[in-house]
């Protein structure tokens, strides 16, 4: 199998990359484009550490082929930040609540919960309940925090 050249739009910038058709979006983002906030955790779509937004929807980078992302803008957590590394308000809530310990799950947690809050707002609802947040996060595992501070952070953001 030969490599082919594709264009990936990541965090608002187009990147020309040569990839094998079998390459996962995770491997290309992490190893080719150097995006360290997209992480290998299990390769099975179970843990959620490789979560990115594809066309605004959260997907597992380990279960998505890079070629499938052609023509579909990709956002990683670092893409949420403004110029000069200004944090997104949801990231600020994570910081305030101590919602990271080892930090490995944090990008996936932030992207998945941001999507949940956005969907709620687009449905004309004020905010998701704590139980809805729990449900949305079942594909994002955390082994350090016990989830409480993550849920607190997301609730505070949703309240804003």
């Amino acid at each position, binding site marked *: 199998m030969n490599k082919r050249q594709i264009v990936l739009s990541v965090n608002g910038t187009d990147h020309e990359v040569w990839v094998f058709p079998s390459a996962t979006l995770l491997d290309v983002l992490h190893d080719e484009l150097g995006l360290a906030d997209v992480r*290998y955790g*299990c390769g099975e779509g179970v843990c959620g550490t490789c979560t990115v937004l594809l066309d605004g929807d959260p997907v597992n980078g380990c279960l998505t082929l890079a070629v499938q992302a052609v023509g579909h803008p990709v956002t*990683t957590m670092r893409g949420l930040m403004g110029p000069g590394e200004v944090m997104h308000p949801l990231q600020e809530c994570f910081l305030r609540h101590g919602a990271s310990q080892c930090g490995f799950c*944090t990008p996936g947690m932030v992207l998945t919960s941001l999507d949940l809050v956005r969907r709620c707002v687009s449905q004309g609802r004020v905010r998701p309940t704590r139980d809805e947040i729990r449900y949305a996060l079942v594909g994002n595992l*955390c082994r*350090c925090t016990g989830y409480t501070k993550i*849920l607190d952070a997301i609730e505070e953001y949703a309240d804003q």
Partner: protein
Amino acid sequence: MTIPDLQSLTGPYRIVGTSPAHHDFVDKVKGSLHYAADWQLPGMLHGRVVRSPVPSARITGIDVTAARALPGVAAVLTAADVPSNQIVELASGGLAELQVSMPVLAADRVRYMGEPVAVVAATTPQIAYEAAELVAVDYEELPGVFDPISARADGAPRVHEVGNTLVNWQIHCGDVAGALAAADMVIEGEYRSQHVEHAYLEPEAGVGWIENGVLTLRVSTQVIEHAATIAHILGLPQSKVRVIAAYMGGGFGGKEDMTVEAFLALLVWHTRRPVRMIWDRQESLVASTKRHPFIMRYRTGADRDGTITAQQIEIIGDAGAYPNLSPRVLFAAAACACGPYRVPNASITSTAVFTNNVPASAFRGFGAMQIVLGYESQMDQLAERLGLSRTALRERNFLAKGDLLPTGERLDTCVEVAETMHRAIALLGEPPQPSGPGKLVGRGIGCNRHPYGRTIWFRDRASAWLSLQGDGTLLIRSGVTDLGAGQAASLCQIAAEILGAPLDDISIYIGDSALNPPAGGTFATRQLYMSGNAVLHAAQELRDRMAPVAADLLGVPADDLEFVAGRVRAQRAEVSITLAELAAACDKRAISTAHLSTWRAQAGSFDPRTGQGDTFPDYTYGTHAADVEVDVETGQVTVLRYGACHDVGRAINPMRVQGQIQGGAMQGLGYALTEDMAIEDGYVQAVLFANYLIPNAQDFPDVLVDIVESGEGKGPLGARGIGEPPIGNVAATIASAIQDAIGVRPDRLPMTPERVLALLDQRRQT
């Protein structure tokens, strides 16, 4: 940035007792932290381990020809290529254990499924994977032994020639037989726990390269001191191996033994090129170390009023195929087997047994965690039999400062376990009501005594170096490794407290065996105790050295000075100078503004023949409480509310203390109810992460936390360690709640619906 609702209430301190979001939090929330797998170097190769697919076999041949011939392959190494192919881990310091070494790569015999046999490096991960598949190993399968009871039987297949009993610890005091015979009540029970996976979200990873002739590894590890072992394996001087610890994506003890290090070292040294190795999750599940399954047999004698008079305890742990840290794990179990209770007559044996299962080793709690189920089950059963309340029975027997442990040691700090018990129960509020027919509710508690600091006979040390820079900012250098619990950040808070440097003006360099003073590894809940004290004393020494200079400049007595908010100021006069001005003044007088401090833990010795002597420096005490609902049709246990309270001595950073307790309790809930790393005849069953059920956000309720600050720990400013203790109480607490709900005590983990249903059947039959 501080968390307003979590300020420590009791402390006389400015920075200690607050919850700042320090550098590590900021990098993690921004996604800008570079973990071990995030490092890339020019010309970097990718390494992969070839592992045994069978648990017990003789290797009759290895053919690497096809693998070496694959284009892109740079190296295929086997045991013959390892200069010194043995890792000797005298885990107990050489006390009473068999001396068995573990090969880096198996030469002629494999003893567990997943044992490394060869290692390859190639230009891409895919080629490395293909090359590993092409390594042809001929195995002649041998009989194996897969549980510790069979392994101790006569004629059992030997895992190692010297025998299957790795270590047998004995602690005896008083006259147990006499006391049991004289007791008004004797109860007994056997409790069993399972293999458990650490399941840190960051798999084992690292990158190695050669720089200035020095083999350098940047890995996800709790212990940079493995540099010495790596040097031994390669036959290099220790000065030619450097280990840098990246901030870890979790470790929990699973990165305390070496993981990728020796393989990376071999490949880098052989190819002279940078090499990266990342274990697949599935590889990690099969081959990484596990928590020891325990068999715990307890007999407890008591007077009619509930006073415990004697305990006879037998603990057996499945060490798996190699020693790793099993001798120490089983020692911690023995030393803590009576829990936070006074037991005047005790007989404790604790045995680590070789099997052909994957090796068990360190895992948060380290033996002192499994046995909580044993001693707390006995307490609840005793309370039930004597018709006493569970809390009253415990209060009658709680240890107090000045009491003797079965090892003959005297407790020299306060024991606030009763306070934690009342507070943990208070967190739950009113007892729950069943949600409907066919549901039973119950409330349970679990108390524990957990050591912090290494076993005393290791004569533990930790060093730290502080330097006030010319502009008044502060550098800290420490070999501490950071698991994500804020090990580095806590040191910054302690230094800031003493020297008055604002946290933003402090930079800390950690985890580098060549550049930073050795701190010992991050395990045994020891870093706050050890490195915290090292930093505290370095900061105090620096302040005492610089204070006379400031006093001279300000024209006030040195004892009138306080170091705060980047300044040194006189408390009684309205004068002050900045730390920058102080640094300049010291420089002018040729007074060094840097200091290296080494903290030494208390010394002592233990006699393995008599089981008497010193064990651990001190303990952290705590209690958890839970309300559960049991569905009598399905056996499903729903945790309704969960509360946890520990005496942490002093909370250096209350938010991080809370995080440790919440995270530890959640990990314990997985252990209690869902997690089971089942191994059938040596074959690990959960070969996918999807098959191993760690708690997700929906499984359990929030863990409510209360913190007692007795101020009497042996850590800096009276702190006690809190990393490991909060995982210990959970299984006992849930078992206690299930017993309260259904009237039968679970004695086997995890407490799955199938097992709870069987208990319900047992109740119906009796």
